[in-house]
């Protein structure tokens, strides 16, 4: 039960984070886009908690405002990649044949590129912008889930309960949706949650390089980049959004870990049983 409590705790933290990001616009103490050059580069103080940037914008408000873009575009991206990859993988694993051969060769081709290098190239071709950055990482990211879902489907395919379902006349769609996907879903979910952190860092990395969210929009990666040249004078400009990314990634990583540990005992039992059957 220790696992369950840990899982609940980190789920609560993640939900809190999501709520903050959703209502960030109402929580900002200052307008995150209002420039006031008289207040530029102020150190952290009672007025501006984490100081101001070179245009006198309140950094705390900008970090809050940036959370909406940073967190929700990451979640959107992970969802798209997971769903696309899983559907492709399950279909390939179940039907095999030409579909499997073609889709998996395509997946292999994308897997042959280091993902950030590929995303850089795609974002470079399409030009900056958050949509393009998300698209670039989605193209680079789905094959991983396709591979995973395919191998999990293959491992389930010959299971007795699926034979039974087939024999009792269930349609293929019903078997896939009601039996296969729920059975492999746990492991895919764990992988997806553990992927959130990495994805967020990659997305922020693209923005940091100027290929994602464009200034003046508040987003953590591009804020770090804006503050980079002033690291010696006003380090808080880039350290604050950096810390925000770090904490967010940490929470999602801990959540993923807790989720894996929570699901693990069951899987171990399944594995042992499977070993006996063979």
């Amino acid at each position, binding site marked *: 039960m220790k696992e369950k409590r840990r899982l609940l705790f980190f789920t609560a933290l993640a939900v809190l984070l999501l709520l903050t990001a959703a209502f960030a616009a109402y929580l900002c103490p200052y307008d995150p886009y209002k420039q006031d050059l008289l207040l530029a580069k102020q150190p952290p103080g009672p007025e501006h908690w984490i100081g101001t940037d070179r245009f006198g914008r309140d950094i705390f408000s900008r970090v809050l405002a940036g959370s909406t873009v940073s967190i929700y575009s990451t979640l959107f991206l992970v969802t798209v990649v997971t769903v696309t990859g899983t559907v492709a993988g399950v279909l390939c694993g179940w039907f095999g044949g030409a579909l499997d051969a073609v889709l998996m060769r395509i997946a292999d081709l994308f897997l042959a*590129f280091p993902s950030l*290098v590929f995303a850089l190239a795609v974002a470079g071709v399409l030009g900056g912008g958050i949509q393009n950055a998300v698209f670039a990482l989605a193209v680079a990211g789905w094959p991983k889930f396709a591979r995973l879902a395919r191998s999990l489907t293959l491992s389930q395919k010959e299971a007795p309960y699926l034979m039974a379902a087939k024999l009792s006349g269930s349609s293929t769609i019903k078997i896939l949706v009601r039996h296969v996907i729920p059975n492999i879903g746990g492991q895919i979910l764990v992988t997806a949650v553990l992927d959130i952190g990495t994805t967020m860092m990659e997305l922020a*990395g693209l923005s940091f390089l100027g290929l994602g969210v464009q200034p003046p929009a508040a987003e953590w990666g591009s804020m770090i980049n804006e503050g980079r040249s002033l690291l010696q004078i006003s380090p808080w400009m880039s350290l604050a959004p950096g810390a925000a990314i770090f904490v967010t990634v940490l929470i999602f990583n801990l959540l993923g870990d807790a989720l894996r540990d929570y699901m693990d005992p069951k899987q171990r039992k399944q594995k042992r049983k499977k070993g006996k059957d063979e």
Partner: protein
Amino acid sequence: MKLKGMHFVRNGQTEGRTMLKYIGKRVLQLIPVLIGITFLSFAMMRLAGGDAVTYMYENAGGAVSQEIIDEAKKEYGLDQPFLVQYGRWAAGMFSGDMGTSYVSGRDVYDAFTEKLPATALLTLSSVLATLLVSVPLGILAAVKQNKWVDYLIRFFSFIGNSSPNFFAALILMYLFSVKLGWLPVVTSENTGLSLILPTMTLALSMASKYTRQIRAAVLEEMNQDYVTGAKARGVKGSVIIWKNVMRTSMVTIVTLLSLSVGNLLGGTTIVESIFMWDGVGKMAVDAITMRDYPVVQAYVAWMAVIYVLVNLVTDILYHYLDPRVRLGGDRL
């Protein structure tokens, strides 16, 4: 006895032969992948770069007549059919002719090979630093499982694993260059001193991941029957760890290495740009912002080729190190 001996010899021979066969098979499988990689890299940039010449002239300022644009397109070979262009370019990867940069007018292949050693050095030093840190720490954490040392190591590895490399880079820069003044913030040329911070940045997240995995691998091995047996026979703990457990944990390390090469190659782009390390990663990022497509094209294709080749080598190593895989066929 004699029969048994012959049996062994034959077994050894067949094993060698299956190994060669495996390598041959993997190399053959590589050919379509290589064609796919180069084609995709080329097609992607061509899709974007169709108007690169127009863009280039517009960038230089002033209106340009259609004739001059056509002339320039001819010069860059952009008037040829697509497949002809691809064939010529792919062949150029081997002969050293991958076009000229739109921005600097330099030969792309020359520029690339000139900057590749810097990136290779950074990659290698990061891997070395990673292993130097993570192997001892991973073993220590496993041996002292659930003691405070273990918790401390796991805590820091989690922290390291959750820091994006550009953030880690800024923290290190702030700490060692701005606050302590030990190292230069950025240097104009690659020196030993300027290698330290980028290496630390890249090694930080990798070492965190490795430490966790090595700890898990060592723990798993220490629960094996043969370790209990060795302990029962009175073999020293340190001997068991270094002689037996480490050998089997090598498989984990090789797997980790093959998995992290991709991240490493991607990571060098960001880290090189931050620290102004003059390698191919920085060159690529600069080229992307300048829309210098021939350079980006060459970079993407070469990185993918290197990645695929490294994966091939690690797969073969993996195959060689772990007899179980030899029988199991493809790995995931």
